[in-house]
């Protein structure tokens, strides 16, 4: 089956170039990943700042062009799309951004941000029908239309504003929602509500969600599969149960050990051998994590590790697992697990 969205051997390089001495930054380094149309699920792309996760989002949205490799939507190269195809792509792949304060024009009421996408993408729509669509979308994300519409952005809380953004994306009946750190600026006590409305979209409407975050705990809570990025490359990917509960890559282990657990009896270990700050001594040829890795071996410094299919639902790019077979065609989604039942088209309308 043709994937809905596909990254094929995508590399994105910033900087460098003719007459410039600035070093190049490889933001995304040969990543392949697919979203299948028949298995709506939540996929997390996780990593620290500088890991390339936001560049991945921009590539998936077609806003950034890959330096090499291609991005396909329904089998068509996004870079070479005609106007009509591009319109369809932009309607069906909807972003939700990090900052619920900056994505609004403070001079317009909330209604504006919900009305304009209908006008832009749906053509002329009677006012009553618009209103109905907007109310339905707001209810879907758990907001009461009468308490939301007619207000200005500053009259809503950060959590409410972010849910209006989810509702806006929802109005266009997208196939994919790409949420870049949607809760990092929202208070802890309200995060669950936004994440819950995202997972309802997958469960009830069959929309695939790509959740980009640095927070592995929320990723574990809402997603089915996860891709851990390190300096532009996939370190480990697979089902969250495998990757988070039983990490194999030394980098994933370091990340998970560093999460501050809300439990004074389970404090960070005092052993900080793996905490050495990368002194930029990483060899250009070998594994990018070698300079920080507590389990570094001699050949890590000269061989870039391929992705190994460590088990059925996980792949890791680490020479510790060189006795397992390499992942075929590098598509990390080939090891993903889908727990949610596949909804039939008739079942996608919520009651």
């Amino acid at each position, binding site marked *: 089956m043709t994937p809905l969205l596909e990254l094929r051997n995508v590399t994105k390089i910033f900087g460098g170039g003719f007459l410039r001495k600035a070093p190049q930054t490889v933001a995304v380094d040969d990543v392949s990943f697919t979203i299948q149309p028949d298995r709506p699920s939540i996929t997390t792309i996780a990593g620290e700042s500088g890991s390339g996760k936001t560049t991945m989002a921009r590539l998936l949205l077609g806003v950034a062009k890959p330096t090499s490799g291609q991005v396909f939507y329904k089998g068509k190269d996004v870079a070479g799309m005609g106007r009509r195809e591009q319109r369809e792509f932009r309607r069906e792949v909807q972003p939700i951004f990090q900052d619920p304060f900056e994505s609004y024009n403070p001079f317009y009421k909330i209604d504006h941000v919900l009305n304009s996408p209908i006008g832009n993408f749906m053509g002329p729509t009677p006012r009553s029908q618009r209103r109905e669509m907007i109310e339905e979308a707001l209810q879907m994300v758990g907001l009461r239309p009468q308490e939301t519409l007619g207000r200005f952005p500053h009259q809503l809380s950060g959590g409410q504003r972010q849910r209006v953004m989810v509702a806006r994306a929802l109005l266009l009946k997208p196939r994919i929602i790409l949420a870049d750190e949607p809760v990092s600026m929202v208070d802890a006590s309200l995060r669950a509500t936004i994440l819950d409305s995202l997972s309802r979209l997958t469960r009830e409407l069959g929309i695939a969600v790509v959740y980009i975050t640095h927070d592995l705990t929320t990723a574990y809570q809402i997603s089915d599969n996860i891709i851990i990025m390190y300096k532009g490359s996939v370190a480990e990917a697979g089902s969250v149960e495998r990757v988070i509960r039983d990490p194999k890559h030394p980098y994933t282990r370091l990340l998970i050990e560093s999460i*501050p657990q809300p439990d*004074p009896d389970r404090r960070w270990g005092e052993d*900080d051998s793996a905490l050495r700050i990368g002194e930029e001594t990483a060899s250009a040829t070998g594994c990018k994590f070698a300079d920080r890795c507590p389990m570094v071996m001699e050949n890590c410094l000269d061989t870039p590790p391929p992705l190994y299919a460590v088990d059925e639902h996980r792949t890791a790019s680490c020479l510790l697992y060189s006795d397992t077979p390499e992942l075929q065609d590098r598509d990390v989604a080939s090891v993903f697990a889908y727990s949610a039942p596949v909804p039939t088209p008739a079942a996608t309308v919520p009651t």
Partner: protein
Amino acid sequence: MADPVTKSPPAHTAEANNEVVLSVEDLKVYYDTPSGPLKAVDGVSFTLTRGERLAIVGESGSGKSTLATALMRMTRSPGRVAGGRVILDGKDLLPLTAEQIRRVRLSEIALVPQGAMNSLNPVMRVEDQIIDGMVDHSETGRAAKPELRPRVHELLRRVGLSTSVSRMFPHELSGGMKQRVAMAIATSLSPKVILADEPTSALDVVVQRQIMQTLGQLQEGLDASTVLVGHDMGLVAQFADTIGVMYAGRLVEIAPARQIFQNPLHPYTRLLIKSLPSLAGKGEFIAIPGLPPTLLDLPQGCSFNPRCPDVFDKCSAVTPQLLEVMQGRSAACHLFEQKGEDN
């Protein structure tokens, strides 16, 4: 109070000694707005003993950062301290003159600011910034700058930076390194109290862990006390001995860290802990219903009553006071007042 000159041997637990270093009594910080005073901090009291690590947690708008700035006497207009006392080592900071408070800052109480990336001077070398603070705030008058250079190297090494950093500008440093420089500045005059306002808010988890461990080592090395202000319950659990929970400008619960997590008393604390996503099992986190109140329009009685699952009649009429309800534990909730009366 013990003689502040004789340093007691380092004790890393709050239980080990009871020498009070900082005591905050009924502190009130209001912001004057056209619609009346906004009570960002409304009657907060707590004490900090030597070597203790206290954390103040709360959501955005709970008043925790306003509290931290008031402790440094750095409240700016339209904010004003409307009442209370901040007693550091026996001396009330609030009536001090500008010159007197300048001698207290950094040498007795120092702040590690939120977002160190924006708190360093972009056109000044790291060593000059560290020396600047030391010269400006030292009690012993102005030391000659060249004499302080070896001291700068010592400070940088203590926060885990190489001495070559001293000649660098802030833009040459990563976020974690800048935060370390901010910690070097804050501890340059060996303060008795280190205030840290969300010191790791923009940093990745691995760097966050390094920074918090460095802060802990600094504090133990100086035998200082720490007030950590933050919103991340996980981070606080990793660091603090005592946790104070703020809601709408008031402390609603204060207790030893272990007890807060094992048996939270105030319904807000309980729900806040429940709203944390965990790695232990899926589907175990739920949002607190409703929204945090706006401080200009607080509900009658307890500010948390519209969101509280255990609300009863008295909650919407009387504002509960922070009372000691068990040994070493205080909560501001009518549920426990009655228990206190019964005992």
